[in-house]
Structures are given as C-alpha cells and as structure tokens.
C-alpha cells in the first residue's frame, strides 16, 4: 500500500475495498489531529474529530474527485467538523487543554524543557485571541503549508478573504507574541 499514490488508494476505497484505510490514516492523521487540536483547544475533541474525518472519508469516498488533492479534501472535512463543534453552545466557552504538551526528550535540560513548555503555552494563548476564521486560516497556512487557493476551497470563501484573514491574524499574533520579547529585552537592559 505504501507505494500507491493517494489517488490509487482512494480508487480502491471508492470501489468498496477499505484495506487502504490504515495507510491513509497513517499518512494524514498527524496533520489532521494537530490542526483539530490547535483549532478546538481540546485533546478530547481533537481525537473525536480526527476519527470522524477518516470515517467520513470512507463513507463519502465517492465524493472525492481524483484530480483534487486528498489532503485538501480531508482538511475540508476536518474544518467543517471543527466549525460544527464550535457552533454547539456548550463547547464555546471551553478552556484550552493545557495538559497536553509533548514532553521534550529526556536529553533536554530542565531549563530547556521549561522554555519549550512556556513557548507552547505562549503561542497557544496567542492563537486563542484569533477569531475561528482567522485561526483556521493561519493554522492551514502556517502549519499545514496550504496555499491560499486551497484554504479558500476549504473555508468556502475567496482567496482575497483568506488573505485578509491571514493578515489580520498575523497582526493580532504579532502583538500577542511581541510582549514577551519586549520583556526579555527589558530584562537584558536591566542586567
């Protein structure tokens, strides 16, 4: 299965053969999971969303057109699921899941581990200041490397709208992330 392209794997699935399911999951689940986690701020919700994305991939395989990229289609499904999750009233005020931080390897010093954790929390808090549309756009652009055309397809808006969302997201993130850098500079000056 590893030697088959995405299109070839999906042709098998469309014909009713679900044996490529594991290979497709292994290829894309990490990206989908990380997108869902950063968007929904909850590991539990991200796990459910990730599983649901690939189940829908199997159930609705015939909707996938061979000339499109499988990643774009999977992210479309993921983005729709994440938006639906946020729309549900009881999920709106959910606090971010701060306990799920990938622990650095044992070779790192305690200071380095602390720095990594602080950086992650800082970035996560900055991302929380974005609107859902801006967060979706920046997650797909910055972390998944998708083009604005692909993001527009996923978000169901124009490329111009994607450009505006990414720009506004970066304006917010710049302010949120520069606070610490300023503090560091002041500490250095004081020393």
């Amino acid at each position, binding site marked *: 299965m590893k030697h088959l392209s995405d299109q070839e794997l999906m042709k098998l699935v469309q014909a009713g053969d679900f044996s490529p*399911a594991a290979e497709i999951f292994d290829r894309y689940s990490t990206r989908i999971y990380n997108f869902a986690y950063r968007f929904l701020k909850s590991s539990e919700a991200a796990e459910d969303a990730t599983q649901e994305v690939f189940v829908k991939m199997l159930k609705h395989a015939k909707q996938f057109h061979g000339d499109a990229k499988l990643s774009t289609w999977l992210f479309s499904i993921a983005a729709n699921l994440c938006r639906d999750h946020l729309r549900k009233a009881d999920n709106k005020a959910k606090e971010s899941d701060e306990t799920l931080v*990938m622990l650095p390897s044992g070779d790192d010093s305690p200071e380095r581990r602390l720095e990594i954790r602080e950086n*992650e929390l800082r970035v996560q808090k900055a991302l929380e200041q974005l609107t859902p549309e801006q967060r979706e756009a920046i997650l797909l652009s910055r972390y998944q490397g998708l083009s604005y055309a692909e993001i527009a397809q996923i978000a169901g808006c124009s490329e111009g709208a994607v450009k505006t969302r990414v720009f506004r997201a970066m304006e917010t993130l710049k302010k949120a992330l520069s606070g610490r850098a300023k503090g560091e500079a002041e500490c250095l000056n004081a020393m």
Partner: protein
Amino acid sequence: MSECDVVRERMPQLLVEAVEPMLREVSHQHVESCEGCGREWESMRAAWLALADIPELPVPAAVRERFLAEAARLSGEEKVVAFPVRRHWRWIAQAAAVVVLVGGGWFGGQQSAHRRPATIEPPIVALSENVTIDAARVNPSFLGRPAVQNVRFTPVGTDRVELSFDVTSHVTVAGRPDDAAVISLLSHVVENNQAATLARSSAIDWIEDIYRQRGSASPELIKAVANVLATDAQEGVRLRAVDALTRLSGLAPEVQLALVDALKNDPNPGVRMKAIEALANLVKSGTGLDPAAIDTLRDKAVQDDENLYVRVKAAETLSQIDL
C-alpha cells in the same frame, strides 16, 4: 489604501514566497526603503518564526485503533449481499410498484387539483426606494436592531406623527454570476467611491475569483473594473483592479485604453507592472495591441527614471509582439 498598506497586507504571503517574482521584488524594495514597513516586516517575521515554537503532537494510539475498528465494521456492511428475489416474484413486485405509483399519482392529482393555486410570479424587488408605511403594518419587534440615521420627527395634526429615517438593512441577493441583477450590483459596489475601500477591494477579488473560473466576465463588469483602475484614489484598490484585469479573459478593446493610461500615469510601480502583464496576456491570446499601447511600451522600456522592473517587463512584452 496607501502603498505601505498594500505591502503590509502582502507580508504574510511574502513570508512563504507565495507572491509573483516581480511583485516580490517591488515589495522588498519598498520594505528596504521605508522605515515603518521595515519595522513591520521584522516584527511580522519574528511572529511567524515564533509560531513554529509549538511541537507537532503525535496522534494517540487509541484513535487509530478506534478508527480501524470502525473501518472494519463499515467494510462488513459493504459486503452484505442482497436477498435474492425469485424472478417471478420480482416481476409481480415491479408491476405492483407501477400500479401504486400511477394510482397514487392520479389520486393525489385529483385531490390537489381543486387546491392548486394559479402560478404567481414573484414580484420584482427594488433594492432602494423611499417608502411610507402605515404604522399598523410595521412589525414592532425590530429584529436585528437595524442602524437608523437622519431621523426626523414630524407631528401631523393632533394625533399622528411621522418618523422618517434612513435604515441600514442587510440584504442578500442570491443568483447566478451571469444574472443581470448580480452583474449590476457588483458593478455598483466596485465603482461606488462612497463604499469602504475594503468593500471595493473585496468585490474586485470576488469578480476575479468567480469569473475566472467561468472563463470570462461580462463587458459591464470588466468596464467597471477598468473604471476603478482609472479613477480610484486608493492604490490598493487600483492594484486589485489591474490584477483582476490581468487574469480575466475576454477583455474588450477599450480596456486597453485603461491599461495604457495606468501604465503611463499610475504612481504605483506595481500597478504599472501589472498593466504591462495584462497587455502581455492580450498579446499571448492573439489580440492585437493598439499602436498607442505599443508606443507606450516602447517609451517605458527606455525611460531613464522608470522603475527598472517596469522597463524590463515592457521590453520583454515588446519582444513578444510581431511588429
């Protein structure tokens, strides 16, 4: 929108090098020469790099197990074989289905014939008009808390008042891109200098996105975009307009005048370069250029005080023309 605004809005794309080479060069030239934009660029880069400070999380193994279990269950459902129907029973079942469908349709038609209303054409709606409405016909709940302005209060006699105001209501016009009303509305938004810059820019982006996929845009829309290129005070809007004209096919000959005018007179080098690109696209599509356009390209190619990239692009375009 100033040139600084245009360049700053483009910065996220510059970070991932998703900008055409010439626009990228022009943008970086501006960043190097403008102190404010230089600072903005550095802080944007720093934020972009800082975003990478979060590690990629592994997918919990349980998620994979649950998914594969569900996939196996779904696969089992796919393999279920339909109960074989004996041939003669199938024939009888099909005949019975036809009787039910035909009989049911006739019966339902009889029942609804008396209730079937005459076909009524929906009224044509005017989007903008002065209206006087009797208070008894107005819904007092004011859903959405509309914004009201220019309010006037006029007593009429002893027991009537007239409250006049302009109200902002949110209207959605739904239709196909080639519907006359959609085209007229888009043209109006694009050319309406009273509308916010963002609304005009967004409308031009929509026009480019929608009509590029369809292959061409109506002459009315292309003329509206060309008019924006010629007259809009905001550089960012003019840049979007010339960008759209570069990508839309089916450009009418009179649009060449707008492109040539932009090439000669627009103060923004990015707009001038895009104008040359649009003219180059015309050449590639087999549409001839007017003598005025060719003369302008020649002048630009040798103009000492012109931006170097504009001069090079003009020379390249001239080399593609069979003179």
